[in-house]
Every structure is written in C-alpha cells, then in structure tokens.
C-alpha cells in the first residue's frame, strides 16, 4: 500500500467527518416542530402528518375515556392537542412530549401517538414518596 | 532463479529450485497439486505457509514485480464472453502496458486472424484456448507458467504451444510446464513428479 495514499485518504476522511459534524451542529432539520412553527405554518400544513414537541401546560390535562385533551407550549406559543392514542405512564403536567398526528383546520393538533420525552434526569424520590407510576410490573 | 517453499490448500509441501533459462516439467496424476504449485509461483495463490523467490523477487512482498515478468496460462481462459477476441487482447494490453499493435500478430500466430472481430461467446473451447494462448504471446514474459496447455487442443494448436515454448527457451527465458501429455516437453532440463501435494521425484 502506498504511504502517500494512506496520508491523503486519512486527511480526506477526517476533514470530511469534521466538516459534516460541525455543519450538523447548526441542525436545521429536527425530529419535531415547535408549536410556534406549527401555528406559523398555519393552513399550509393542515392535514399533513407532522410531529410536534413541547411541554404540557400544567393544569391543562383533561381526560375523557380514551381521549386526552391538553395544551403544549414551547414557552411562547400554546397549541391545543386532542390525543386519541395510548398514554404512557410517565405522562403528566410539565412533561416534555412529542406528538405525531395532523394539524387540523380547527387550530387543534390531532395526535394519535404520544411519546414522552425523557429529560435524562435521574433522582431518588422525595422522602416518604413511593414512585409507582412506571413500575416494571406493568411495563415488562 | 525461482525458488519456492511452502504449503497451500491442495499443496502439502513443496520445495523447488529452477535455473533461469531452463524448462521444468511437472508431472503427476490429477489433483497432485500441479496447478496449485504453478498458481503459487505465479502469485495467483498465496502460500498458507512458507516463502519463496521468483526471478529473485520475494513471493509475498514483490508480487507486482513478479507479475510484470510472468505469464500464467491456466485451466480457465479468463476471457470475457461478450467481448471479441481482439477486444479481449486489447484489454490485456491495457492492463499489462503492452502496445496495442501486438494484437493482430498474436492472433495471427494462433490462427485466429479471421475471427478477431467475433465475440468469444461463439467460440469453441479449443478456440478460446487459442485466444488465451495469443494473450500469453502478447508479451515476452521471463517466466512462462503453462498449466496443461495442450488439453483440448488439436494437433496444429499443440504445435503452436511447442513453438512458443521453444522460442521462449531460445531467448533464455524460463518455462514451467505441467502436463499429462507424455509426448511433450522432451527437451526438459528437469522433471519433477508430484503426488498428493508433494514433490515425490
């Protein structure tokens, strides 16, 4: 194997990877849209399947049977959601969620998949509290 | 000088020295390891164990030097079916850095000048072997490795092979010939007999 070629290839590969990695940090393409982006896009995305991410506004959750209504926010904009899909045990006020569904003409996001975005925070429970919300006995 | 020692699948152990400009005849029953031996010398097969030098070049480290100076004519003709006889040879020229002008003469020598522009897919096995032989004649390799070159050839074509061997030897080039054909290779300086992957005599 030619030594010069090894050097050139190494330079190209590392250069390329660095270039793409630093470029990737600007991240113009994301898993989900924010409520602001959804409302901004308005009628142009009505009926189109998208993902929305945000925090559940405390006190906004209303459950009626299998349907859950709540409001998500990104801090600036609020978006009403009607979720018909399964609700994970960790779902609660203030929690980060990602919703899959369509933005309706009624200005409400109709979601059929609700995913709870875990914040990567691991802490022991407060004294005297027994956490049972997501006990393994139910989840496998 | 060519010198090989080692083992490869189908070749248990072989140790061998050939002087430059000699004809070495390799005999033995089918499956004795003749082809493997020639393929190891021609760098088509790396020995599992062992080492060697061909024309003074290390078998493991200087393969391109050996390849530049060696021609291995094996069982398989290595031709492209969808190319014509001339195109196959021209491609070989490009790969070996030989001038394209050598092609017509080589084809004429094996008696295929008339069908130079026909595709190999229409050729009989004998004609294909002639094309492969013509390809071997494009260059003047210092070491010519011939593995059963007479198999499937008619009397006329066998004469062409003999003439090619004689010419190479007259030039002071080395030839290693593996064959069953007892009438051939009469001028060999040395004969070895192989059996079950070993040189037995």
């Amino acid at each position, binding site marked *: 194997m030619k030594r010069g070629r090894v050097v050139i290839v190494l330079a190209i590969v590392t250069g390329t990877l660095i270039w793409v990695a630093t470029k990737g940090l600007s991240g113009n*393409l994301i898993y989900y849209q924010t409520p602001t982006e959804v409302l901004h896009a308005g009628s142009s995305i009505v009926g189109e399947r998208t993902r929305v991410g945000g925090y559940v506004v405390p006190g906004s959750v209303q459950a009626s049977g299998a349907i859950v209504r709540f409001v998500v926010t990104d801090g600036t904009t609020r978006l009403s959601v009607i979720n018909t899909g399964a609700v994970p045990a960790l779902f609660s006020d203030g929690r980060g969620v990602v919703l899959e569904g369509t933005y309706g003409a009624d200005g409400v996001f109709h979601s059929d998949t609700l995913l709870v975005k875990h914040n990567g925070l691991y802490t022991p429970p407060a004294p005297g509290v027994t956490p049972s919300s997501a006990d393994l006995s139910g989840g496998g | 000088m060519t010198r090989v020692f080692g083992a490869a699948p189908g070749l248990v152990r072989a140790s061998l020295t050939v002087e430059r400009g000699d004809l070495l005849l390799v005999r033995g029953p089918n499956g004795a390891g003749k082809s493997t031996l020639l393929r190891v010398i021609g760098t088509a097969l790396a020995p599992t164990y062992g080492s060697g030098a061909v024309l003074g070049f290390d078998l493991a480290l200087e393969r391109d030097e050996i390849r530049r100076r060696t021609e291995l004519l094996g069982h398989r003709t290595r031709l492209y079916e969808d190319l014509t006889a001339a195109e196959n040879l021209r491609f070989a020229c490009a790969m070996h850095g030989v001038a394209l002008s050598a092609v017509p003469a080589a084809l004429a020598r094996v008696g295929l000048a008339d069908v130079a522009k026909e595709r190999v897919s229409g050729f009989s096995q004998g004609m294909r072997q002639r094309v492969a032989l013509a390809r071997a004649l494009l260059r003047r390799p210092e070491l010519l490795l011939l593995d059963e070159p007479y198999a499937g050839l008619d009397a006329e074509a066998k004469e062409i092979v003999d003439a090619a061997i004689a010419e190479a030897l007259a030039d002071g080039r080395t030839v290693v010939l593996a064959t069953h054909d007892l009438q051939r290779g009469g001028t060999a300086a040395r004969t070895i007999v192989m059996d079950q992957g070993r040189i037995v005599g």
Partner: protein
Amino acid sequence: MVSSLERVAGRITAPRGERILGWATLVAMAASAVMSLVVSPPDAQQGNAARLLYIHVPSAWLAYLSFAVVFVASIAYLATRRTRWDRLAAASAEVGVLFTALAIALGSLWGKPVWGTWWTWDPRITTTTILLLIYVGYLAVRRLSDSPARRARWAAVVGVVGFLDVPVSYLSVTWWRGLHQGTTIRLLGESTIAPIMQVALMTGVFAFTLLFLYLVTVRLRLGRLEDRAVAEALSPRLGQSAEALLEQEASARG
C-alpha cells in the same frame, strides 16, 4: 506500543489470567446487581423501571467498545498480517453483536413504560440498529472464504469501512429525527443523575467491561484452538512440525 500491548494481552490470556479474570467478572457482576437492585433507590419519575438503566447503558457501552476494538484490530491486522489481530477482531465482533442486540432489546423494554412505545425511529436507536446490521454482515463475511488469510483480510476491510460508516450514518439519522435523551453523565459540567445512582451505573459499566474482556479472552482461546485444528487438517502430515520447518527455512534465508 503494539508489542507491549501484546505482552499484556498475552499475560491476561494465559490460563491463570483467564481464571482470575473470570472470578473478577463474577464478583463485579454481583456487586453491580446489588448496587442496582438494592442500594440504588427507585427513580422519582420512573420508579423501578429506571433500574433498567444499569444494564441498558453498560450494554450499549460494550456495543460501541467492541466495535471500536474491531476497528483497531482490523487496522492492526492489515498493517501487520498477524493472525492474533484477526482473532481479536472476530471475538470482539461476536461479543459486540450480542451486546448490541441486548442493548436494543432492553431499550425497547424500557421505552414502553417511559416513552410509551416499544420502538421509535429515534437517532440513537436507529443508528444502533444499523450498527448491529453492519456487524451481522461482518460475521457473514467471515463465513465466506475457506482461506484463513483471505477471510481475515476481507473481514478486516469490512471492520474498517463499517466503523467509518457509523459517524456518517449517525449524523444522517440525527438530522432526521431526535427523541433519545442526551448524555446523562457528562465529563464537563454537571451530571443529571443523583450521585448514588451514578455509582451504581459506573459499577455496571465496570462489571460489563470485565465481562467483555472475559468473553473475548475465552473466544480468543477457542479461536487459537480452532486455527490449530484447521492447520492440522490442512496438512495432516506436517502437523506441529510445520512451524519448526518454516522457522528453519526463514533463518536459512535471513
């Protein structure tokens, strides 16, 4: 550096080293089990489900560790052509495939109670799956050739190219979607995990790393025996004496 590495590896892979390593692994695994199941409290949000962290994260760590070892060993093989590097790459790839599959399965089990789904096309999950498939392909390539030298060379190329594909595919998938949490333990800045849980997690990572070393060591020993058996089958009459003969030949040449 390579030679001293080999010397250390040689000491570990001796029968005594292997036995000691085996016991150390067992003790560490037991300690990890106690730490994760007894000492560590349940998580405030997830409850006992969070205990999956203590095997999911170490499994994922082993997946990446073993493929990095395959990458380095593959380069070393191509540079030196020493069979031991090939055996190391093969052993590490097998262990890696096992733990990648385990990490994905555990992640899926965990995802159900926490995220509310068994599976989602999240970057980390997707790239880990791609990684698994690439190394399943690696193991398939290892079965392609009868010639040990050729098999080693082919596998080494796949080991190098496959690993280089990981950053590119990671980026492509990251740009595409993102649900998986970020890094929990950070070298710089504050960790988002309680200290006691972090200790339990580190114990798990340590125990699994020992397990990796032990499995690779055992696999290396099997690989050596396998190679010897193949060499003997290849040249029955030559047997053990082949290497002696070759050394004679080499010294005569040198």
